[in-house]
């Protein structure tokens, strides 16, 4: 039986765990642990394996929501996680030192998967740091030849995460009728 999944990725603290929690129908399986390396300067615990949530669809099907571990030392898992995925949700933390560098890193890392599917980008923490702006992200993306949806999101707000995932799906097929 096919396993349908959407992958959430992004740097440490971007809100992957929270975003999955916002739209999952079941309490997400979290694998957070006390941070023991450089991540600790940004948050007290971090995801060391992966996050997992489920959306129950009509007809009994399930959509699996996977969050990649934020720490790069776990990037060996990323290829396994994306296999069979529908699309990629990239979350970026606007308070980090260089969010464009983060964006480029993840877009490069998941380049093949994005070419095969699509990507939607959510920028978090814009209420704490309003720069760079969403337009600034588009300028960077344009230079990379990309035109994905880029939304300001609060990962705790279901409608924000929902709109981002909807944009991801419409990017795959604008003719969809939900």
């Amino acid at each position, binding site marked *: 039986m096919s396993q*349908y999944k959407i992958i959430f990725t992004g740097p440490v*603290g971007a809100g992957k765990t929270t975003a999955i929690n916002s*739209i999952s129908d079941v309490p997400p399986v979290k694998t957070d642990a006390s941070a023991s390396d450089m991540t*600790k*300067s*940004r*948050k*007290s*615990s971090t995801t060391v394996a992966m996050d997992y949530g489920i*959306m*129950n*669809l*009509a*007809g009994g*099907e399930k*959509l699996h929501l996977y969050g990649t571990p934020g720490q790069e030392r776990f990037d060996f898992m990323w290829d396994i996680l994306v296999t069979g995925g*529908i699309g990629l949700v990239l979350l970026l933390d606007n*308070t980090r*030192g260089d969010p464009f560098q983060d964006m480029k890193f993840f877009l490069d890392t998941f380049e093949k998967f994005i070419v095969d599917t699509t990507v939607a980008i959510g920028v978090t*923490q*814009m*209420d*704490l*740091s*309003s*720069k760079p*702006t*969403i*337009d600034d992200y*588009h300028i960077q993306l*344009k230079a990379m030849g990309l*035109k*994905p*949806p*880029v*939304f*300001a*999101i*609060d990962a705790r*707000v279901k*409608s*924000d995460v*929902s*709109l*981002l*995932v*909807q*944009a991801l*799906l*419409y*990017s*795959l*097929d*604008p*003719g*969809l*009728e*939900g």
Partner: protein
Amino acid sequence: MDKNKSPLKVALHGMDGRSYKMMAMYLQGPCKGVAVVVNQGNEDIDIFDVDGVNGGSLIAEHLTKNTQKPVIVLSLNERIIENVLMVKKPVKIDDMLGALSKAKSLLQRPAQQIKKQDVVGNKVNDSDQIADEKPVLKKFVLDTDEQKKTSKHQAAMQLDEKGFGAFIGNVAGLDVNDPKQFFRASYNPKEYFQGYVESAFKVCHAKGQVRQLNSGWNPLIIFPNSHEIWLDVDENQLRSFSGLSINATLGSKMSITPLSQDSSTADRTLERFQSMDAFLWKTACWASKGRYPASIDIRQPVYLKQWPNFTRLLVTPHALRISALLIQGPRTLANVAEVLNIKPQYVFVFISSACALGLAGQVKREADVLVELPEIKPNKNQGLLSRILSTLRGKKA
């Protein structure tokens, strides 16, 4: 050693992830980088939030260790805890700088125990000294007011087809969905509040100056540098005003005037701040009433430069689908409606707002209309994707 290059190293305790990050940025931004958050074990100073779930037990445990490091406690109450520096919440910059300064002076006298419990409620004498130190780690300035601008950061309203007519309005005697009436289904933004707002935004950006748009109605204050506006009216009033053709009646009263320095920086209700984009987007929706802007030639394709930031804009029916289609390439408005099998009014209202923000434009080159438009290919998982969409929208199809 140059003390300006030696920020205090602090470890944070008893804070959840968001509070932890907030405090780290608070120290970097408003506190001008005089302290930096480090891993536990490497710190000069420990800061405890004792109002959290484990805060009380953490500080109690810490104090039993008889550490020589200064301790700062953040609390809603002015607690009496021996040998610690208190900062009352909500934390004020002067209080925090005062406590850090005091802690720093204690560090410079390592042989002495911290003897005196100190409630930092007012400015500490040497806080100025530490505040004047050159910022070292500042990457951006955290504006604590920014979070209180709830209208600016809250999730946008999403309209469905059912609510569209009542919310957006219509024009008597015009069926915008009838192809035979397409040629007269346009409107001139300059006759509406939208046109004056667009014009005022351009002036403010060009001058780089805070200005006020006077309309004989409530004044609109425009802050071009932060890309914000301030208007003290509720949404229903704005919707009604935006839908009126005001050029003939109020046009002569319209003016844009610079604000004095005092007026520019005056305290304003933070909830009334909105982003310029969100404000202009909905103003255009209400002026459009389901029509398209007169600057658009209905026979020529339009294109979309980038996706609108939909989470912070009024989301009209099918706006996401229209964006996804137009981002692939230029199409006429009628073709968009046909391909997506939706009423033209939804395409028209979308393009009105997208044009107002400069996100959409009209194809001018013949080459762009020379070849047949590409068909959209249904995704192989179309059924599944539709079920996901239904679930996301709360419809259990």
